[in-house]
């Protein structure tokens, strides 16, 4: 039972567990999701990203664990010896379907990957809660414990105007699933800037700067590491946002080129996204062992000088 698995320089014990009737071994400290993926089992994830410790907030990845009253989030639950796990039961399907419906009926998931595929896999129909509400409160001013009593004719949404308050990126919280990844990237997991966090409670919960001030008045240092981890397109380069608005964003035509940031000796890896010979946004490889997808303002946004054209 104490076979050893060697991963790089680390030697980790492995544990034996049963997933969907099959005995498998997985390294100690890995998650049920890791174990499932390693044995070819596909599980949908929404709030899970590859560089942030998951907050397991979306609950789409739930699996059944023998002995547990509730389902457990596979993205965060660590493997333990002797676990008996089922990934495809009526209960897991029900939870995935309902989570997709609850999010789909309240949030704009149009830029969230795989949603239409999962909707059809799990027979999710977000519109069964009614037409989206057209009554849009000012979410930044929501008072905890106060809400309009619903009449049930429409389904409330988080729809709100896009926040455009600086030249570098926009925040479209109508698309936000509250995965907390931007908060953790800005805060204690990467940047330690703490410009944004969750404000409000329940359905009013939202990502906000302190007192909802504009980014330009906040602690934001424009590293853009929040954009890097955002899985929904809620946080977006202004360049991308404007091209999408103008209908000129054509992702399928874009090329991606890896290079090294020229600004300082850290030498971060950059991935330049190029359309029509113009850099349209910059990301960084999240599997890089040093930077994990993180950059600073210069590497992230300082690309205009290589493509300056004369003002007309």
């Amino acid at each position, binding site marked *: 039972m104490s076979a050893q698995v060697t991963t790089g320089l680390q030697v980790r014990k492995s544990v034996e567990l049963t997933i969907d009737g099959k005995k498998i071994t997985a390294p100690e400290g890995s998650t049920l999701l890791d174990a499932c993926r390693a044995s070819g089992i596909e599980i949908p994830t929404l709030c899970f990203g590859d560089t942030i410790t998951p*907050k*397991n*907030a*979306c*609950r*789409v990845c*739930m699996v059944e664990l023998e002995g547990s009253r*509730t*389902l457990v*989030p596979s993205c*965060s639950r660590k493997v333990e010896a002797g676990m008996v796990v089922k990934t495809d039961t009526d*209960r897991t399907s*029900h*939870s995935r379907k*309902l*989570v997709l419906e*609850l*999010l789909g*009926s*309240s949030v704009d998931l149009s830029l969230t990957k795989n949603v239409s595929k999962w909707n059809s896999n799990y027979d999710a129909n977000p519109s*069964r*809660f*009614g037409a989206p509400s057209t009554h849009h409160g000012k979410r930044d001013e929501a008072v*905890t*414990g*106060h*809400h309009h*009593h*619903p*009449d*049930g*004719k429409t*389904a*409330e949404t988080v729809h709100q105007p896009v926040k455009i308050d600086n030249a570098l990126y926009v925040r479209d919280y109508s698309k936000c*699933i*509250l995965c907390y990844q931007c908060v953790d990237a800005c805060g204690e997991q990467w940047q330690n800037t703490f410009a944004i*966090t*969750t404000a*409000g*409670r*329940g*359905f*009013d*919960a939202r990502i906000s700067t302190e007192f909802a001030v504009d980014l330009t008045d906040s602690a934001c240092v424009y590293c853009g590491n929040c954009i890097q981890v955002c899985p929904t397109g809620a946080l977006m380069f202004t360049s991308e946002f404007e091209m999408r608005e103008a209908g000129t964003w054509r992702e399928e035509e874009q090329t991606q080129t890896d290079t090294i940031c020229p600004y300082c000796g850290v030498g971060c890896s950059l991935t330049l996204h190029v359309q029509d010979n113009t850099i349209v946004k910059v990301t960084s490889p999240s599997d890089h062992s040093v930077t994990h997808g993180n950059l600073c303002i210069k590497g992230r946004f300082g690309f205009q000088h290589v493509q300056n054209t004369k003002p007309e």
Partner: protein
Amino acid sequence: MSGRRQFWLIETGVTVRQEVLAPATKTQIAELVSGKSAPAEQPIAQAAPQTPDKSLVLLSRIGNTNPLSIDDYIANNGFAALRKAFSIGADQVIAEVTASGLVGRGGAAFPTGRKWAAVASQPVKTRYLICNADESEPGTFKDRVLLEGDPFALVEAMTIAAFATGSQHGYIYLRGEYPRALKNLTNAVEVSRNKNYLGENILNSGFNFDITIFRGAGAYICGEETAIFNSIEGYRGEPRNKPPFPVEVGLFGKPTTVNNVETLVNVLPIINNSGEQYATWGSTGSKGKKLFCVSGAVSKPGVYEVTFGATLRQLIDLAGGLKSGSTLQAVLLGGAAGGFVGPQDLDLELTLEAARAAGTTLGSGVVMVLDQSVNMLDQLQRIAAFFRDESCGQCVPCRVGTVRQQEALARLVSSNSADETAIDLHLLRDLGQVMRDASICGLGQTAHNAIDSALTRLKVFSA
């Protein structure tokens, strides 16, 4: 800010006063500001109609001792259990609590001895004890009577719990809206410290322990044990993921015992007598004494102490029976997170096992008696609104599910088509299942319980 508000200025040089006024009107507030004093609060014992009665176990000192006087407390058997605990040793204290069969009174009914033993066996030696005095479950007011009327008992019980689990510091996480409890507890902690019932080398035992009172800011979710950790640490009141469990990784990342006020106060009779003696009270599956919060359409609402095993009918009779002119429509057991039972369930034994068998829960001891004047549909909508407002918003099943549940109820209330009713009932069941199965914490997991019980047991929408 909406609407016009009037403000009264407090100027420099004015002595700040604190007054308690509830419910308050604008005129009354204006009078307070202009120098009038608020009317005296109701006597504490009024909330416990059985008192004063020294033969009660948990409420024995309510109404006949001065809650501000340590001498009064000591004259009424105070700190006897603590001395005995020091003489029998920590292991034996845990053994007695385990033998007593005591389970948590905060709602989840977890065996207290097992929790203490788990903390006591941790390799990490810095450990915390938290008394959960947040008491926010709608209809719950039992802890308040103990906190206000017998605060030294809580100090003594916490010191015993800390001694048994090897904890150096305790917090009382106190509901923010309990000013009198704050005053009486603050006094009890300070006086106990001055008399060496807290602090260094307590009563020459070599044991050090102290207590900090931490006030909540009015969120129901902050009564959830891991949300309390976040709240005390200065973070948003959001529950944490379990595992790791609090007994291993709790407050400030250290092993932590969280116990309800009533749970802790039960430890005193257990140590004063014995676990075995305590276990003679009650039924096979529910041991000891229990406080119930009886409210609604009864003649004498209040906190009642009974031995586990009394029936719902007996409890209502104890509270003076139904008010004259009232006929029973339903009883909400266990609070908003609990469930409704109907008039046909009056002979239900109020034990954990009988409640479970009947598909309901005793929760924190809420017995809210509703008569014919109550509109059940309004009640359900109120409960749905409560969960929507109190959800922390962290996980999708609860954050959005509680809103969809409220919307579906609103449709059901105004529905006049059997087909639409059937669709929405189905929707509600779907929502209930995902909230129960996939929510992070007990709030979301129980947010459909009361509504479910009203649908299945009271058949509110199948008329």
